[in-house]
């Protein structure tokens, strides 16, 4: 289970990164980032996985004693929430950039934005 999740997350990350590095269209690069982020989020959740654990919410299943034997790790789940929100913010800002760049040059090709160099 965790092996599959881990491999999935790594593959997602690498596909996303490939998209960022090889796509010329800025929007596609941003999609690459989204994939990258998704892979990261899967990774984080996977890291918190405990074999046979349930959701870290105290209810009838877990009871309130010896909870630690029954649940998966809540910390990565808390972290992933933060990571998702950050990813959302970054994506939104990148899209705003893309919009502005398109307005300036009527182009979304990253190679058209090379005024500054050397």
């Amino acid at each position: 289970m965790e092996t599959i999740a881990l491999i999935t997350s790594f593959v997602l990350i690498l596909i996303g990164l490939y998209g960022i590095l090889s796509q010329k269209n800025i929007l596609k690069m941003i999609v690459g980032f989204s994939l990258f982020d998704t892979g990261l989020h899967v990774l984080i959740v996977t890291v918190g996985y405990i074999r046979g654990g349930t959701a870290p919410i105290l209810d009838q299943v877990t009871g309130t004693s010896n909870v630690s034997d029954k649940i998966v790790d809540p910390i990565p789940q808390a972290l992933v929430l933060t990571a998702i929100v950050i990813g959302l913010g970054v994506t939104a800002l990148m899209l705003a950039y893309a919009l502005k760049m398109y307005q300036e040059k009527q182009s979304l090709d990253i190679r058209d934005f090379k005024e500054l160099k050397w």
Partner: protein
Amino acid sequence: MIRNFFIILIIAGLAGVFVSLFWEFGASDTLTPLATHYANNGAAEVGAPNLVTSIVVTYRGLDTLGEVTILFLVAAIISFFLKVEKKGQKMAPPRVSSEIILTASKLLVPVVLVLGIYVFVNGHLTPGGGFQGGAIIATAFVLLLMANPRFELNHRIIAAVESVSGMAFVLVGVLGILLAGGFLDNKILPLGHFGKLFSAGAIPIIYSLVGLKVGSELSNILSNFQDVQKDEL
């Protein structure tokens, strides 16, 4: 071509890094001592059945404040970045939405809003919380936009909700220093009955504030994107 080959090469290199992490990684059957502490004492210390919430809002409350700040920042940046001077430009005639969307939006928006509120108010009890609830609220706004592209949100109200809930969040945090054990301590209010709506100290309050804030911020971001595109039409 060479470039693509090179990219694949370095992706492969990075895969190498991951592989070395993969070999070290073995699924575990027991929690880390830190997680064990949260699991076994979370209920007593924080009073929220949803352990993720107690970590997000209390134990790691400072992160959450940073998270909220990020959304706030993005909203602020986008609003001054995409700000367009409206000089009575000619606007293209609005796209007419289909009857289905128009009707559905009227029907669904209140429901979605209520669902969003439900999700963040109950964040300490059930899966969900301020961010999730806020996101749901923002979808209601998306629906409105889809139904009526000319729809304009009252920016003043949105900004007010955003700022007031943010300040209140900080204020609750500071009260933690004054009344309890530290910044963002939830014990400024009694922990109450475990598992009840009004329990877990300040968590429901904080999560409601976060929900409002996230909802208004996401809506704000969307509406800014929408404003720009109106001129494009």
